[in-house]
Structures are given as C-alpha cells and as structure tokens.
C-alpha cells in the first residue's frame, strides 16, 4: 500500500513525486493503474492550481463521452474543483452564451462568452481542444461557429494564453473524420494529417507547445494521465506525430489478444468467428496504441478482442488512409499515407514476431500477390 503515501506526498508537492508516479503508471501499463491510483491522479490535478479550458470545434462529442466513460469520479471531481467558476467546457458547465439585443448580458457566473473572455485575459490555462478546426468556406471558418464567432477565431483567441495545449482526439490532433469533407478545409491543432505546415498552429503563426492525444475516441486514461503530467509540470515525451510515447509506442498487433490466431494463420473472413481479423481489414499492424494492454471502458475489453477489426483510429491518416475499413491492408495502397518511420516500425516489429512477417513483408514492399491462405474456417 505504498501508494497511499504517494497520495499525501502528492498533496505536499506534486512535482517532486510526479516522476515516480508516472514511472509507476508506465510500468503497470494498464487501466488498473488509474483505477487503483485515482486519488493520486486526482490530487495531482487538484493541487496544480491551474485551470482547464476545454474548447470543442467540429466533432461529434465522442471524446467528452469517452472521458466520462473513464468515469473515475475522483478525477472528475478534481476537474470539477478546478472548474469552480473558472474552467470552460460547453458540454458540462453551468453557463451559456446570452446576448440581449446583440450585447453580451449578465456576468461570468451565467454567461459563458464573458467567462471565456475573462479566462483568456488571465491566461496560463491548459487548453484542451476537441474536434477539428474548420477553415471553410473560403477561409471564413463559418462551417463551425460558437458565440457568434467562427470556432477558428475562438481557437486563435484562446491559444496564445495557454501554457500548454492538448489536442484531444484524432480530429483535434490531425483533422480526422472532418478532413474527408474537402470543402470544410479542416485541420488539427498542430497537424493536418501528417503535415505540420498545414496544421492550425503553423497556418495561424502560433507557437505554443501542443501534445496530441489522438483516438476516435481517445482512451480516457490517455488524457487523464497526460493531463496529470502537464498540470504538474513534467515534460511529456512525444513521437514524430506529437503523441506521448508512453501510450502510442507499439503496434496494436504486437500484443493483440487475437495474436495467437494470427500466428496460427487462423483468419476469419466474416465476423464473429473468433479468430484473427486480418482478412476482415484489421489495421492493427499500422496502429500505434497500447489498447491491448490498457484495454477500454475500465479495462473491460478492446476492439479486436470483441471481434471488431482495428481501424487505426489513432493514426494521422485516419480515417481515409484506412478505408475501406473491411478490406485487407495489403489489398490497397495503404502505405501511401503512412510515412517511412511508421512503416519501419512495422517491419522491425514483424522481424521479431516471425510468423507475421510474410504478410507484413508483402505489405511493406507493396506486393499484392495471391492469398497465402484461405480465411479461417467456421
């Protein structure tokens, strides 16, 4: 029960023990950590003295849903405590935007627009962005408005004062689903797909540090642990796409619960067969996330475990690069949108894993070839 001491340590000086705390998180590498250490994470968040401003652009609200899913009331309570009359989240806060005869009415206690302006003036908040930033039509950003202002402008107002920005979800990280609608001219906060130059930060000439926590939706642990880190001032080590390495370091395929079936070449060609989902379009080899060890919804399960092919929802190319979702990776030119680093990771991964190498080699060299085995029976 050494962790109990950690809680009180955290209360006295969160920064000092953050290393230990995070090291433990990484070592356990499972949702179990967050659940058994919720009070410690909560304390880290609560004691940081920082505020969280959470803006939502063009998206589906699924990121917020997923975080509520995480449902660690201690952590949400901690977030709530920081939010006392301060933080901003349009799905959860008491306030709303009110204009009377065109002018903002009331005060920050009731009016969300006045509240947001005040927060921006004070600065030094952690800014969480959910949803993509739309520039269309004609660069106006009017395909996504809030408080009589294009969301693009709301973001541009809020970004400079942020001590750190977390792009939550694949839309905010890379543009995500919104990027499929060309007319929307959607971009993520610091990336558009794999391009930093086309990301909102570069386009608008902003320079804050941004951490990407992608996923469609993101796992709540990813956000809460990253947030705990950021709030207590620890540098978060990120990969080439701005994602914390701690969570997005290895391919889903490497420790997929159905890996045994892959190695035995027991592959299903229709759903609910219980075997490897490769022939059904699983993109687990191209998706870098710790889903298999962390699992989802309180450690209950994950996509491939429940028989759903991985759609690589954490990758910059999602969803376009991984569609059709149910077509085999190698039967389409999937490497077009995946950079060499990523491809290399797959190959390195594959060389260790032996049995998988055949398919992966074909994938890497783009050989379309005949099917080497008929999908698993049943």
């Amino acid at each position, binding site marked *: 029960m050494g962790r109990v001491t950690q809680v009180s340590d955290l209360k006295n000086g969160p920064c000092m023990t953050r290393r230990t705390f995070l090291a433990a998180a990484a070592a356990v590498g499972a949702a179990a950590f967050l659940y058994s250490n919720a009070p410690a994470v909560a304390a880290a968040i609560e004691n940081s003295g920082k505020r969280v401003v959470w803006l939502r652009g*063009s*998206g*589906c*609200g*699924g990121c917020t*849903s*997923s975080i*509520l*899913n995480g*449902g660690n*009331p201690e952590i*949400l309570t901690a977030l709530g405590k920081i939010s006392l009359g301060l933080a901003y989240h349009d*799905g959860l*806060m*008491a306030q*709303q*935007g*009110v*204009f*009377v005869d065109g002018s903002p*009415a*009331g005060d920050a206690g*009731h009016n*969300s627009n006045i509240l947001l302006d005040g927060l921006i003036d004070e600065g030094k908040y952690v800014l969480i962005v959910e949803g993509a930033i739309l520039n269309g*039509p*004609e660069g106006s950003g*009017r*395909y*996504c*408005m*809030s*408080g*009589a202002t294009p969301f693009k402008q709301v973001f541009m107002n809020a970004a400079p004062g942020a001590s750190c920005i977390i792009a939550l979800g694949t839309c905010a990280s890379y543009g995500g*689903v919104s990027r*499929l*609608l060309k*007319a*929307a001219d959607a971009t993520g906060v610091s990336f558009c797909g794999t391009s930093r130059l086309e990301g909102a930060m570069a386009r608008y000439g902003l320079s804050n540090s941004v951490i990407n926590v992608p996923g*469609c*939706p993101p796992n709540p642990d990813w956000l809460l642990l990253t947030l705990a880190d950021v709030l207590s001032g620890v540098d978060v080590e990120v990969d080439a796409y701005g994602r914390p390495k701690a969570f997005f370091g290895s391919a889903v395929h490497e420790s997929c619960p159905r890996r045994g079936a892959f190695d035995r070449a027991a592959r299903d060609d*229709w*759903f*609910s067969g*219980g075997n490897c989902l490769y022939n059904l379009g699983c993109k687990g080899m191209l998706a870098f996330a710790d889903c298999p060890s962390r699992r*989802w*919804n*309180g450690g*209950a*399960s*994950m*996509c*491939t*475990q*429940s028989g*759903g*092919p991985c*759609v690589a929802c954490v990758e910059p190319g999602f*969803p376009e690069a991984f*569609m059709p*979702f149910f077509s085999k990776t190698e039967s389409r030119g999937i490497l077009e949108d995946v950079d060499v680093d990523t491809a290399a990771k797959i190959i390195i991964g594959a060389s260790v894993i032996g049995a998988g190498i055949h398919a992966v080699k074909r994938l890497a060299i783009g050989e379309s070839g005949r099917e080497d085995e008929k999908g698993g029976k049943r």
Partner: protein
Amino acid sequence: MRITLDPLTRLSSGLRITVELKDGYVVSAACSGMAYRGLEQMLLNRSPMDAVYLTQRICGMCSASHATAAAGAIESACEATGSVPRDALIVRNLLNGFEWLRSHLEHLYLGFMPDLADPMYGDALNSSDLGNLLWKELKGRYTAFEGEACHDALLCIKAISRAEGILGGRSPGSPAIVPGGVTSTPTRGDIYALKECIEAATAIVQKRLLGALSIEEWLESTHDGSGDGAFRYLEGLPMDSLSEEKGWGDLPLFMMFCSRMLAKDTLSLPAHIGLDRLGGYPLDDQLIGFLSYGSFYQDRDGYVPAGDERAGSFVMPAGFTSGGLQLLNAADRLDPGLIVEHVYASFYEYGEGRTSEAPASGETIPAEKADSIGYDGVKYSFIKAPRYGRVPCETGPLARLINGRESLIVGTMQKLAGHRSAGYPLASVYTRTLARMQETLLLCRMLKGWIDGLDAGGRYCVRVTPGPGSAGRGLIEAPRGALGHWLAVGGDGKVSNYQVVAPTTWNASPKCSELKSGPIELALLGGQTTPSGYLPGSEANPVGLYHIVRSFDPCVSCAVHAIRRRFDG
C-alpha cells in the same frame, strides 16, 4: 427585446437560439445549427460497408444508434433483414439499451437538471418552509458538476460503460455492430459480468430516480397499471423531509414540484416550479405531430424493416400521433413515404429550384460562399427541415411514450387536460422530462430481460453483401428520437447516395417552405424567461428558455449533414 442564446451549452456544441420578446412573451423564435459536418458527403463513392463505422462518427452520444441504422440500411438493401440471428439482435438491443440509459442520465444530470439549481430558484422558493426544503434538495442534488446526483450519474455511467466495453470492445465508436449481426461472441463469464454491471447501474438508477420504491414496484403501479398509481403514491409522501430515503427520489420530486397543476392547483402546496406551463404547443393537428420509428428488436430471428408490418416488429412501437393528442385511439401507422426534407431556411439548395425532397432522392448543395452564412436572413441554419407529410414532428422519449400510449404519460396528460381551462399544454417541459425519466426506468427492466435471455454460444452474424444498384433504409429510434439512414448503391458497387435524418434534425428544424416553424421554435413561442413569468432582469439569465430548449436534448452533431451527389469541383 431580442435574446440570443449562443452557444447553448450542456448539450452537444453548436446550437443558437434567437427569440423576440414582447410584453414578456416570446413572439418569434429561430433555432440554428451552427456547424456543417456533411458525413454523408464523405461516404460518397466509398464501400457501403464503411457506413457502419463512419456514421458512428456522426455522434459520440449515440454511436451505437447510428451503427444500428446503417447496418439496417445495408441489411435492407441486401434483403437480409429476415436472417439476422436472434442472438445478434439481442446483443444489439443491449448495446443500444446501454447507450440510451447513459444518454438519458447524461442529459438529465449533466444537461437538464442543473438549471433547476440555478440561484434564481433559491430566491423564488424562499417564501415558505417547504420552498426552502425544496431548494435545499435542488441545489444539493443538481448543481452542475458538484451535485450529488451528478456524482451518482457519473458512477452509473461508469458501470454502463463497463458493460458496453464487455460487449462492444469500447464505447463510443464500438466496432461490434456490423451488417449481418454483431462481431462479439459473449462468453458465459462475459454474461455474468454484464449482469453485475446491469445490477450496479440499476441500483444507482433506482436510488436516484425513485429513492424508496423498487423499479418494479414503481413500474407495476404506473406503467403496467392505470397510471393513477403515481398520483396516489405522491400524495402519500411526507412533506417534512424531501430526502430520497423518504421516497422523494428525483422522479417523484420532479413530478410533484415541477408541476403547477399538481402542487398548486390540486394540492395547494406553497412551493412549485411551473414546468408544466412551459414549452408546449398550440393545439392544432396540422402544426405538430409526434413521430417514432420503433425500437428494440423482438426476441426472434430476423426483423421486419420499416414499412408494412413495422409496428409488430419492435418492442417499442413505431407510429405517429398528431398534435391534438387524441390518446384514446391507437397511434397512426408509420408511413416512411411521407418523410420529406425542406431547405427553405437552411444553408443548402436543392437542384433545379426544388424546395423539398424525399431523403432517398435529391442532391443537396451546401452554401459555398462565406457571405451566405449568417443568422439573420431567410436562411439561418445548417439543419434541414424534415416534415411528415406537411407536419413538423417532435421526436424522442415523449413521442415514443405517446405513440406507445404509455400509462404514466397518458395518465398525466389526462390529468393536465382536466385543468385545460388553466391552459396546461399536454406536451411540455414537464411531460417531456417525465417521459425521459420513466423511459430510464423502463430501460432498466428491458436490459434485465435481455441479459437473462442471452446464453453463451449461438449465432451472431450472417454474411451480407450489398449488390450494385441496390437501395435500403434503416429506421430506428436513437435516445433522442427517430433516426433514419437511407442508402443507395451505384452500379459500381459504391455508395451513390446516403442521407441521414437524425432526431435533432426533426426537433431543431428551422422553418420549412410553408414557413412552418420546427418543434423547438414552436415550443418557444409564447414562452417566458422564467416559469413564473417575466421578471425584471431575467432576460440576462432566461432560465425558462433554457428549460424549453434543453428539454428536447438537442444534439447538433447529429443534425448537420447533407450530401451533394455530383461533385463538379
């Protein structure tokens, strides 16, 4: 005086409401969706199968509903609806049921109820001891993010989400629902764990909504019986304490004290909030209707898709009831052929100057000039205006319980009708919220039934392949109401048309080409800034208007989609 709510929060982002106030009453109202997402456009020329996963990204609150509607559209295009295995349908029922339960809890406790803890009510209720007792409960339970009920709701969502995870891998965005059935094959251990989750969630719902009674006791006297049971029960509760333990769960508390008809007119209590006078419609059959597509599959192999025998195929029936609310007759049969969409007041155009289109046909051109997107002109929303025949329709829990002639709602409406001289509308913020609470309890009962009927083994998916030139539609109910997906597959086997008409497209629709307002707009007309009328200064914090709009649980993410079939550049 002109009040604009922008953004209206505690719902999915992007809703703007503008009302004109004259002598304290709303005389005109405009409801705007401020985002264009166009998921349907993204599906064009892609594999039809991709629709199940891509359309889930329309909404993070009801992704399983979209997956179910998309799977339904594909299955109907393949003429395979009759062969989806029973076990798959039960798993879909469970996944959808979990989603409804959490969506209702999120709406009630994170969205709607916090307005009852607005400090305005502290002042309004402090003239009597009972009022002070009531305010203490409202503040302690419903304060945004801090209230006890909010905390309980989060605990309950956690239990539900675990169940969603066990069955669907994760949520939202679970990959489990696919054309032909589901991907998951729950083991006996999974089923046992699911039972535990359902019990845990149900226990919290029981404690929150009912306090003292069990869910079965409540449903037996209010749902299975005549509907009078609820009133007798409320009258028997003590007035010296309004705690849950004494029986004042959130439902009895709401049912009693948020009704002026019950608390003031009937029982002469010194404290009430008149939500039964807010958010109603003028009584006119042509002005408004209540629409449901039917939801939850029967316990057997296969299902009958929307159309002829639809009514018999679902646990909660499809149907239409017109605004006069003649509840003694059964609901009208659903005729999907009557559904049309208008773009008169929406930032879209139809080809060749047409003003309305059936969802299965038509090309919609979104506004492509920045200047054409403003909120004060003839066009003021990214939401289209669907109509049933010519009638705008409310959809959601209230419409479902009206079309199912549910006892508690019918009984409450009859009681309200008995006081018609006092001007109580039958559909209002009060009955809308009551319906959502009652449905939450019904869901707990249904979830238990489904999980008890699920066994390990069984068949979970059949093979389906949408052929070139086929077309289909999937009509189901999402937590917020009627959800339809229309699919057409071109000669090349790719999607040639896809249309989504979501519940909020109905509820938050702007004016149609006949200049008829949508349901939220209609419900706002005649509304006031607080339930006790216009109070000086209340325009800066018009709680009455918040109640009206939030009672619909609008979800703009779902509502703002359109397809442009031909892309010329």
